[in-house]
C-alpha cells in the first residue's frame, strides 16, 4: 500500500531522514515511534507532500506521490494533527465536511456522512452539528479533528501525535475509539507518536526511528521480546517489561480450551494485562473465557500468564 523507498530529507546540513525504507501493507496500522528529532513527523509529512522529498520515492498503491497534484493527493488521505487546527469560523458540521465539500459531494450525502461520523465518535449529531470549535472540550475537538480526517472515507489515514495534547482519560477513550474504527473499517493508518504504550496498544507494525533511520521494524511483540539493538531495548525500557508483554498478548494466545471456571467470562481478545488485573480484583487464579457471542471457550489461569 505505502512504499517508502530509500527516502532522504535534509534541512541544511542536518540529515533528518536518512535513506529510510519502509513498507506498510494495505490495512496495516503502522506506528512511527521515536523521540523528538528522530524524523518520524518528517517521514509522515512526506507521504502527503507537506514536506518535499529530497531523494528516493514514496509510492501509495504503486503510484509515486509526486505524480499526483498535491491537493488531489491530500484529499485522498485523511490527516489529523496534535494541534487539531479546526477552522474556528466553521461549525462542527462544516469542519467535518471540509474534504467532501472540496470533492463537491451533494449536500444530502455530506450531511449523512457528518451524522454517521458524529455517531461513530459518540457525539450526539443534533447537539454537536452546529456548535463552534470554541464551544467544545479538548477531547471533543480532537474527535471532530479525526472525524474530519475520515470524512471522505480515505483509504489511508495519516495521524501526527493526534492524542498528544489531551488528558490521560480522554486519550484512553480516543485510543479505544480509534482501535474500534480501525477494526471496523480496515483502513491503512500511519500514526506518529513518542508514547511507547500508545504504540504497543494500537500498532500492528512499529517502526522505531532514531536519527532518521529505522532502528527496528516489527510487531509490538517482536519489539518487546527481541529488541534489535541497545537503542531499542533502552527506548522500550526494561522497566515494566513483563506488564508491557502482557498488554500486547491476548487471552487467545494462552487460553486452555479443556476446562471451565466460575464467574463472569472475559472476551477472548482481551489483553492478558487486563486478565491479570481482573484476577487481582476478583482474588481468583482462574477466569472463564468466551467469544463475542457469549459462547464459553475455556479458561485462563494465573500460571498461564507467566508461562
Amino acid at each position, binding site marked *: 500500500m505505502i512504499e517508502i523507498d530509500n527516502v532522504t530529507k535534509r534541512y541544511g546540513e542536518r540529515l533528518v531522514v536518512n535513506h529510510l525504507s519502509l513498507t506498510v501493507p494495505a490495512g496495516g496500522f503502522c506506528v512511527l515511534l521515536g523521540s523528538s528529532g528522530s524524523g518520524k513527523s518528517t517521514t509522515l509529512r512526506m507521504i502527503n507532500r507537506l514536506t518535499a522529498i529530497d531523494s528516493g520515492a514514496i509510492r501509495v498503491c504503486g503510484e509515486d506521490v509526486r505524480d499526483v497534484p498535491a491537493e488531489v493527493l491530500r484529499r485522498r488521505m485523511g490527516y489529523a494533527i496534535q*494541534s487539531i*487546527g479546526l477552522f474556528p469560523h*466553521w461549525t462542527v458540521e462544516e469542519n467535518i465536511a471540509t474534504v467532501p465539500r472540496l470533492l463537491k459531494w451533494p449536500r444530502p450525502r455530506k450531511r449523512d456522512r457528518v451524522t454517521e461520523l458524529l455517531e461513530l465518535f459518540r457525539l450526539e449529531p443534533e447537539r454537536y452539528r452546529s456548535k463552534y470549535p470554541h464551544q467544545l472540550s479538548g477531547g471533543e475537538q480532537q474527535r471532530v479533528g479525526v472525524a474530519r480526517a475520515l470524512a471522505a472515507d480515505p483509504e489511508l489515514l495519516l495521524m501526527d501525535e493526534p492524542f498528544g495534547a489531551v488528558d490521560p482519560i480522554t486519550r484512553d477513550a480516543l485510543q479505544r475509539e480509534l482501535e474500534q474504527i480501525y477494526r471496523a473499517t480496515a483502513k491503512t493508518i500511519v500514526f506518529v507518536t513518542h508514547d511507547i504504550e500508545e504504540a504497543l496498544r494500537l500498532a500492528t507494525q512499529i517502526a522505531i526511528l532514531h536519527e532518521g533511520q529505522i532502528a527496528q521494524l516489527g510487531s509490538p511483540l517482536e519489539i518487546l521480546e527481541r529488541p534489535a539493538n541497545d537503542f531499542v531495548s533502552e527506548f522500550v525500557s526494561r522497566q515494566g517489561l513483563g506488564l508491557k508483554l502482557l498488554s500486547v498478548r491476548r487471552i487467545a494466545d494462552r487460553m486452555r480450551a479443556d476446562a471451565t471456571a466460575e464467574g463472569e467470562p472475559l472476551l477472548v481478545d482481551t489483553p492478558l494485562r487486563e486478565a491479570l488485573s481482573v484476577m487481582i480484583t476478583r482474588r481468583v487464579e482462574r477466569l472463564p473465557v468466551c467469544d463475542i457471542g457469549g459462547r464459553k471457550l475455556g479458561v485462563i489461569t494465573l500460571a498461564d500468564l507467566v508461562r
Partner: protein
Amino acid sequence: MTAPEPMRVGRSLASPLLWVGLLFAALLLRMDELRPVLHWAFPGVSPVVYQRSNFLALFLSHLGLVAGASVAATAVGVALAVFVTRPAGNDFRTTVNAIAAVGQTFPPAAVLAITVPIVGFGAQPTMVALFLYGLLPIIENAVAGLEGVPPAVREAAVGLGLSAWQQLRDIELRLAAPMILSGIRISVTIAIGTATIGSTVGALTLGTPIFNGLVANKLPFVLEGAVLVALFAILTDMLFARVERWAQQRAKLPISETDR
C-alpha cells in the same frame, strides 16, 4: 417573558449613532435656520452662513473623494498585504512596509505641492494624497490579520487539500476580516479629516468654508465647516464600529452555502 420588539425600538432610540446622524443631517440641510443664533453670536459678520455653495453639495463631493481614495487604498493595500504574506512575496515585506510608512510621514500638504504640478488643480491631487495617506493602516492591519491565522489552522487547511486560493479565500481572509476592517476604519477616518486640505488646491470639500472663512476672516464659516467635518468623521467611525462587530461575529458564524 420580555417583549422583544419594544426593547429593540428602545435600544435604537438610545443609540448615539441615530442622534449623531440626525444632527449631522439637520445641520447639512438646514444650516440657514441657525442664522439668528449665529447673528447673535457673531455680530457684524455678514453673511453669517456660508453661501457660495450649499453644504450638501460640499459633503457629497467630500464623500466622493474619501470613498474613491479609500476604495483604491483598500484594494491596493489588501492586495499588497496578501502578496507580502505569500511565500513568493515575503522578500518584499519590509520594502512595502517602508514605502507605506514614508507615504504616511509625508505631510499631506507636501503631497499636494508635489502632485498639483503633475495632475493640475482640483480633485485629483487630493485623491492621490488621500490614497497614499490611507495605505499604511490598511496594509499594516491586513498583514497582522493574515499573519494572525493560527499555524495549526493553516497546517490543517494545507493538509486536508485546500488549494492556495481556497486557503486564502475561505480561511485566511475570513479570519483576518475583523482586523482588515479596523484598518479601513482608521484609514477612512483619517481621510475625512485630511480631505479638508484639498480645498486649498480647488477640491470641493467641507474644508472649503473653513479656508474661505480663514482667508476672509469670517469665523462662522470656519465653525460651520469644522463642525460638519467632525460630525461626518464621528458618524463614519460609529458606522464602522457596527460593521466591525458584525464581522467579528461572522468570523465565528456559519457561511451560507451560497457564499461558497
